[in-house]
């Protein structure tokens, strides 16, 4: 494992978040299994009390675990590469981590999405004293556990896998994709262009859907923008890697998503991928709030308000994404008269 203070900061955040989450789960267990809103006995009163605790703990846990996941990302893209010989960006660090690094990132993303979904339910649930969504919210809170546990385990294994004495070949990993066009993760010029156009078209479509949602005051369906957002992220990620990033690097054939996070490129990766993450979480909010609105008319107003805010957030994130991806490409074209 790499003996870097940043690693300890990451583990401190993970431990803090897990302790809070664990305490929240303990309180939520009885709520998920034995919730009886009509009862007024002592057990139900205790469960209501427990749920209040669980919500408070869950909110703090969400903050702590989000911080831990961000520290992990910053560590991979900007800190730990200095400790791995031959690594110049996150590609080298992930190479040194074996397969655990990517798996850890995937599980962190899924766990945070689940916790974000819980937070949406929690916010809506707090708008009615009967706790209409309490059992559902408790189950979603518990659902994050099977995602968090592998996230932490893979993070541990990934950091233990790094050997500061064993060099990696960061550039070889990137250029192999170009030299072996049939290899995993390879994408031809046509594929990159198609992904680029699809990311712009999908972004435009999402922006229209989000704008409509905002304009109609949250009365439109939330499922469609949620599905489009999920699909758009799948297309936009390779588009950034294979096409848009070239305008930051100002070279072709460098399909590396992690170099975009380096200070040499103004840390643009944080904003570009951050915009994608905000779009995805806004999609989760729209989908969750839409379902709640349809099933619980008493929460309709609160759900509608939440959907309008999510649509606004999605719109702003998409504008930022388009500005940071198509913007440099247009600037390059205006400056040189050519596309890369």
């Amino acid at each position: 494992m790499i003996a870097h203070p940043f690693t300890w900061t990451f583990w401190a955040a993970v431990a803090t978040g897990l302790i809070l989450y664990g305490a929240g789960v303990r309180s939520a267990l009885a709520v998920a299994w034995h919730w009886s809103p009509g009862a007024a006995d002592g057990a139900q009163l205790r469960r209501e009390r427990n749920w209040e605790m669980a919500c408070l703990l869950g909110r703090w846990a969400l903050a702590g675990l989000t911080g831990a996941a961000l520290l992990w990302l910053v560590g991979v893209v900007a800190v730990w590469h200095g400790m791995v010989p031959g690594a110049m960006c996150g590609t080298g660090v992930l190479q040194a981590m074996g397969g655990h690094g990517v798996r850890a990132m995937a599980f962190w993303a899924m766990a945070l999405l689940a916790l974000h979904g819980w937070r949406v339910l929690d916010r809506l649930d707090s708008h009615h004293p009967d706790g209409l969504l309490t059992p559902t919210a408790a189950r979603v809170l518990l659902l994050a556990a099977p995602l968090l546990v592998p996230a932490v385990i893979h993070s541990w294994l990934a950091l233990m896998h790094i050997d500061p004495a064993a060099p990696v070949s960061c550039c070889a990993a990137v250029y192999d994709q170009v030299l072996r066009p049939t290899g995993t993760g390879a994408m031809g010029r046509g594929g990159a262009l198609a992904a680029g156009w699809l990311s712009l078209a999908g972004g435009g479509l999402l922006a229209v859907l989000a704008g409509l949602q905002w304009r109609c005051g949250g009365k439109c369906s939330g499922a469609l923008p949620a599905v489009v957002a999920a699909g758009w992220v799948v297309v936009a990620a390779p588009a950034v890697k294979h096409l848009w990033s070239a305008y930051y690097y100002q070279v072709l054939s460098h399909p590396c998503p992690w170099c975009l996070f380096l200070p040499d490129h103004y840390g643009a990766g944080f904003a570009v991928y951050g915009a994608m993450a905000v779009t995805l979480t806004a999609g989760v909010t729209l989908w969750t709030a839409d379902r709640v609105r349809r099933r619980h008319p008493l929460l309709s107003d609160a759900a509608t308000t939440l959907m309008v805010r999510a649509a606004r957030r999605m719109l702003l994130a998409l504008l930022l994404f388009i500005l940071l991806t198509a913007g440099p490409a247009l600037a390059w074209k205006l400056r040189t008269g050519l596309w890369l």
Partner: protein
Amino acid sequence: MSGDGGPRWSPLAVWAAREVQREAGRSCLLFAFLFLLVAIIATPMLFSHALAVTWTRWMEQTPHLVVRRIDAGGWAPLPAEAAVHYARKVPGALDPTPRLWGVATGPAGPVTVVTAPADLPAEGLPGQRPPAPGEAVVGRAVADAAVDNHLVLEQMDRVTLAIVATFPDNSVMVTHDLVWVAPPDARRLLGMLPDQASDLAVRLFRSESASAVAADLAAAFPWPVRIIDRDTMTEGLRRRAMGKGVAALMLSLPALLAFLWVMTGAVTGPAGRSAYWGVLSAMGWTTADLVRLQVAKALLVGMPALAVGLAVACGAVFHPMAAAWTAFLLMGTQQLPALALDGSGAVVMLLQIAAVVGLPFLAAVFLTTLRGVEGAARSTMEAGQWH
């Protein structure tokens, strides 16, 4: 209370400040404990980081590769001209330079004898002319041990030198036991012939090619050699420095955090607070409001304690006199008169240390308060006649 018209952060902060004043003893205790915790954790971490940065900076001034001739008895002198001739045949090996240096016995123990300005750190040289035969420029430890400004060194021969200057204090980490002499004095002292050198320093066009060029160099010489590359040495030093900080942290952190938990519980815990929290609850405060109040109190005490603790750690690491003592305590090496360490990246390190201590502290306050509030409410509820 948390909804419209309830206390928001600003009035809550005022309320929290008033409570901190009312509980001055407890607050001072928490402040002192947190301050000590931060200082104890931050000092070794910051020291090891600064040491690693400083060592790396020093190492950047050294040659990429050093070639030493070896035989059955270990190190052997190198024929200088032949060594340069062979090294020049290797592509990528630039500017091969024979070096003359060695270890001799001084008045207070072994010292390192060097002859060329290139063997010295840039900080040790400003305005310093090379010593003439019979003269020496020495490090602080050697100067302190000298008698009447004269130095007697022994190795293969006995040499008496006049000390003409001392290396500046900011280079003490490298020059502490260093003696810079003229080449004829060094040859006499070390028993080396005029065409012999201690080793061969080689610079590279690209440092990444060190391992490849080292293999070519080893094959180019007709005698066995040992080649040391700068990056491996730097990495070894960096790991050694960071290892000290991490070891200190790993030894102290679990016990300190457990103590923090207990202390936080004792200071913010529910003993005698149930009635007060009950009154606030009756006034309409929610559990979330009570937790926010406790967190605000913890921040009011914790933030200054964190700042003072980090400032003390900075002083212990970056003030030359204090740093020498810190080095003595942490590294267990020779006591230095002063130690100037590089402060690059210290701010990021301080933020990381603040997070390592601050996050568990806030979590401890949060959980302790929540448990207290819940426990108070439950006992009240279950003890009531209506239950």
